[in-house]
Every structure is written in C-alpha cells, then in structure tokens.
C-alpha cells in the first residue's frame, strides 16, 4: 500500500428530491489499499458506491481518478468495475463466457479470451472443466468466485464491492472473506468494499470508513477504529462495548457514575484526562473486563449481579447488572470462564490501559 491517491472524493453530495442520501463526503483512496466503507442500512453507503462507479450522477462535488476528473464520465467509459450484491452473473452464459465478457467487449480474440479466463479460473481455484458449465448450476461460493474472476478480467484500476457476501451462509462467508484478503494481496489492486458487517470489515480492510446519515463519522485503520473510536456511534457500531459517563475533576483524576475510579492521577499519562468539569464517555471493550475476587482491586471497579451467561464458542459472554441498574458486558475466553452461577454478586474490574475516552 502506497500513500499515493488513486481516487479522490471531493465533497460529494447526492440528493433524491428533498432527501439527502450522501451529504458532503470527502476522502482520498490510496493506491493498492483495501478500504471498507461500513455503515448501517440507510447510511448512504450503497448510494455512494453507485456514484463512485458511475451508475448514478452526483448532485454536487467532484470525483478524481489519478488527478483526472471523472464524475461526468459514464460507467462504461470508466476504468473501474463493481462486484454486485446480486453478483449479476449472466444466466444465459457459461462460466467461461461470463468471465470473458469484458474481454469480448474490448474486442479481444477468442483464443486470448479463453486463455485469460482459464488463468483467472486457476487463480480463483475454479476447476478447469467449469469453463463450459452454466452459471446457474454453480454453488453460492463458486458464483462468488466467478463474479470476482469476471471483474478481474476487466482489469480495473479500482475494484468495488457492494456487499457481495451478504447472501452467503456464515461459514462460507468467513472463508471467502479471507480469500478476498489474500486475493487483494496477490493482485495488488485497490479494493473498495462496502458492508454493514463490522466483522467483515475488520477481517479484510487496511482502512475502514464508518458512514452514518450520509457522512463519514470516522476514517482510520481497523485497529484504531476498534480501540479508539471518536464517537459513541462508532464505539457502539464496532461491536459490544461498555460506556460510562465521566467528568474531569482536575490533577489527572476522574469522577464517574456507577463506576469506582482509582486512577491515582494517571489519567493524563494514559490519554483519558478531562479538564475539570468537562464531560466525557469512558469506553472499555468486554474482553478487557475481569471478574475480581474479594480483596482484589483494579483501576476501575463495578459491583453488580451476574444476570446471564452466553456461550459464543471460544468465548463466554456475561451480562452483569450494576448497582445503578445499567448493564455491563463481559467476555472471557472459555478457559478463563467465571466459576459461579447466574444470580451471584460479582465485582468487575479493568486496567487503565484498556480504556479509551470519547469526547464529543
């Protein structure tokens, strides 16, 4: 991944009548990166990607590909290509014909087309005899790979994806997420992916842009977004989280509601200090919260009652109701599972290193 900009979005706006679907979005997409735009449904991400590939026209703003303005260029004249949510495989064509379609449009010879198609099928681990198979007879995962091969045959400058994995079952989706990431590394192309699934975004992306109500809320590397969200919306959108309203009391100390704080003046040192009287939201992810035995203490402590236990496979999730009635989520590895029962009075604690302060 270089830091050279391949696609520049400059204050893009899209309105449908009175409704503003995309509301002033600016972003530099870098050469060779895997960027994922994540947002809940209705956030405008699908509208945005349609603008980027040229299927809809911008209302305002401009779009620049390697310094050349392209927002007036129709989709069929742009060197970009999209993998659709429905995959849009041509049902009246074989696997080979589908993959060769962009080459046929470009007027390449039948032999060249066939060679390239077989090459791409090998890259995507599609058996060679599938060349003549009808696409309608292929399985979900195979169809996915065919759509990818076809998009790669087009050899786009940027490859866009509109939630292509959303229709697949869980296991297949997980496998294909990893394949897609590998494919990105092998081809070195710029991938722009949209999804509503945080997990999908986390597995694959170099950078994630969180979108809400037609605007980007935060754009950062995946780890950053997870550990250091810039708003409650992002914190809550990026998985389970515990949030507390806190207030600065000066000299590196904090005061919180429903949480005992023993930071001993170290708030500055760990970047969670607030000016006296200033409000903030303290965040801690469930995997950092531990059950404390009586007598043990921690930088942050909450007392409550264990209300529920859920097995999530390798991890166990607990719901704890604190003394002031709010709920906390705790996640432990199975081997560190809490030895007790639902209904027990418990003490929870976590360290200052695992917290993050959100100031809005």
């Amino acid at each position, binding site marked *: 991944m270089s830091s050279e900009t391949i696609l520049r979005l400059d204050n893009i706006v899209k309105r449908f009548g009175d409704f503003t679907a995309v509301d002033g979005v600016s972003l530099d997409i870098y050469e060779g990166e895997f960027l994922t735009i994540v947002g809940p449904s209705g956030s405008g991400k699908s509208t945005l990607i349609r603008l980027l590939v040229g299927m809809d026209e911008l209302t305002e703003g401009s779009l620049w590909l390697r310094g050349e303005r392209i927002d007036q260029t129709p989709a*069929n004249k742009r060197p970009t290509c999209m993998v*659709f*949510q*429905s995959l849009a495989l*041509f049902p*009246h064509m074989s696997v080979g014909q589908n993959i060769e379609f962009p080459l046929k*449009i*470009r007027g390449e010879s039948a032999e060249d087309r066939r060679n390239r198609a077989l090459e791409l099928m090998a890259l995507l681990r599609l058996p060679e005899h599938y060349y*003549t198979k009808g696409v309608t007879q292929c399985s979900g995962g195979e169809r996915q790979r065919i759509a990818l091969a076809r998009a790669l045959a087009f050899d786009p400058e940027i490859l866009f994806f509109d939630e292509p994995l959303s229709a697949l079952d869980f296991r297949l989706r997980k496998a294909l997420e990893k394949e897609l990431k590998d494919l990105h590394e092998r081809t070195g192309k710029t991938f722009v992916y949209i999804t509503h699934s945080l997990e999908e975004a986390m597995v694959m992306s170099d950078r994630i842009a969180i979108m809400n109500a037609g605007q980007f809320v935060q754009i950062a590397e995946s780890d950053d977004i997870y550990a250091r969200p810039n708003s409650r919306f992002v914190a809550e959108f990026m998985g389970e989280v515990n949030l507390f309203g806190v207030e600065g009391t000066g000299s590196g100390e904090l005061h919180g509601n429903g949480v005992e704080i023993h930071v001993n003046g170290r708030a500055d040192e760990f970047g969670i200090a607030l000016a006296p009287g200033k409000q903030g939201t303290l965040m801690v992810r469930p995997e950092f919260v531990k059950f404390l035995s009586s007598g043990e203490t921690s930088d942050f402590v909450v007392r409550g009652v264990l209300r529920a236990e859920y097995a999530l496979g390798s991890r166990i999730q607990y719901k704890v109701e604190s003394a002031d009635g709010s709920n906390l989520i705790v996640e432990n590895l199975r081997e560190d599972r809490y030895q007790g029962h639902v209904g027990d009075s418990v003490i929870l604690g976590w360290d200052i290193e695992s917290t993050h302060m959100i100031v809005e």
Partner: protein
Amino acid sequence: MKTPRILRVALYVYGVLVIVWLYIPLVSVTFASISKARYLTFPIKRYSTAWYAKAVESDTVRDIVSTSLKVAIIVTIISMIVGFFGALAFARYQWRYRRIFQKLILLPIFFPQTVLGLALLMWFNSVGIIPTWKTAVVAHLVWISPIATLIIAIRAYSFDHSLEEAARDMGASTWTVMREITLPLLMPGIVSAGLFAFLLSWGNFPLSLFTTGADSTLPEWLYAKMVSGYSPLVPTVGVISILSSFCIVLIAVVVMWGMRLTRKARS
C-alpha cells in the same frame, strides 16, 4: 398426506373425461372431413381423402390460406418488435407516463372484438381507406400487439436490473447491452409472444370479418361456407387449419430447443 387410491383413480377418470369432452368437436370435424358422404352420419360408411385432394387443388383455398398466412406472419413480426420495446417501457424503464401507458395498453384487449372491428371499419371509411387484408393487419395489431407486450413484459419483470448495469460497468455500450444481455434474456418471452401473435391472428374471425374488405381470411371463408353452401371441404380446410397451427407450435418448440442447444455448443 397421501391421497386415497380410489380418489386418485376418480381424479384420473375425471381428467380424461374433461380432455375427451374438449376434443370431441375437433375429432368430429376430422371425421366429417374424411367421410365420403356429403353430410356427417355415424357410423361412417366409407372413408375418403378426396376432399383433401380437392382442398389442395382449389385456387380459392390456396388464396385464402395465403391471405391468412400473409396477415398472420406480418402481424407476428410487427407484434414481436412492438412487444419487445413496449415491454421494456412497460416493465423496465421508469418514466413519467408509465402508469398511464400500462393501463391504456390493456384497453384494446378488454374491448369486445366485434365492437373493435366495427369501430376500425368506421374509422377506415371516414379517413378514406378501402379495407383489404392490409387493414386487417392493422386491426389484428391493435388487439394482438398489447397481448404480445404483456407476454414479454412478464419476462422483463422477472429479470434483474443489475445484469444490465454490470454489463455497462464492464464497458458495454447501450446497444451492446441490448444485444448481449436484454435481448437474449427476453428471447423466450419474445418467441412465445410471436407464437401467440401468429395463432391469434391465424384464428381470428371478428376483426377480420369487419376489416378485410373484399379479401377473405380462412376463418371468414369457413363461416361463409357454413352459412351458404356447406360441403365436406369446410371441415377439411378446418382440419388443415388446426394442423398448421399445431405445426407452428411444434416449430416454435423445436426452435427454442435448438437455441438452447446452440448456446450449449457455443460455450
């Protein structure tokens, strides 16, 4: 739940009876055409194919068949073309007057054909067009092209808009998208629309009666012969007409089958 055996047998018998009931008229016409006697009596005493020979030799029969065929073929071709574009307007594209168009196009189908025929005849007269088989083509089209449009529109509704977008995204121009994606995907609908158009035109009586003028189509001629001067030539030509319809359906099936095969062979 398993259907009891007795009920299944009863259903089969009932089904067979319905089919027999439907086909008895056709069978009796066939018998009438191969009887040597001038009028149909049962049991048939002597069989003969003499009337078939006469039908084939007759210049009148040849004339009316060629008129009917001309009308039906032209109606079929125009209906397929008009129906294809009409269906795109009906089902695929968003445009301002689409809802009105969708309703207006249905009107000719709901009109009683005799009234439609009469109205067209009066209109042809008032603008000074002398009715011939060509005006019949126009009349048939008024009624048949909406049907063809609907048949193709059903197909057009069921296809995914993103297929066209994807083709365009990969560099295809509007015409290439039409040729490579839209047309092949709608083809089964277009072929069935053509088939319907042909059969509806071939067998149409009420519209033809009003609008052919001095020319005569096969159903008109059959009616005229029934009213004045029945001979076994009437059922004979009737049977020939049914058989040709059947052949057309058969050809269409073979064409569709062939298309599927060549597509397989090409890939």
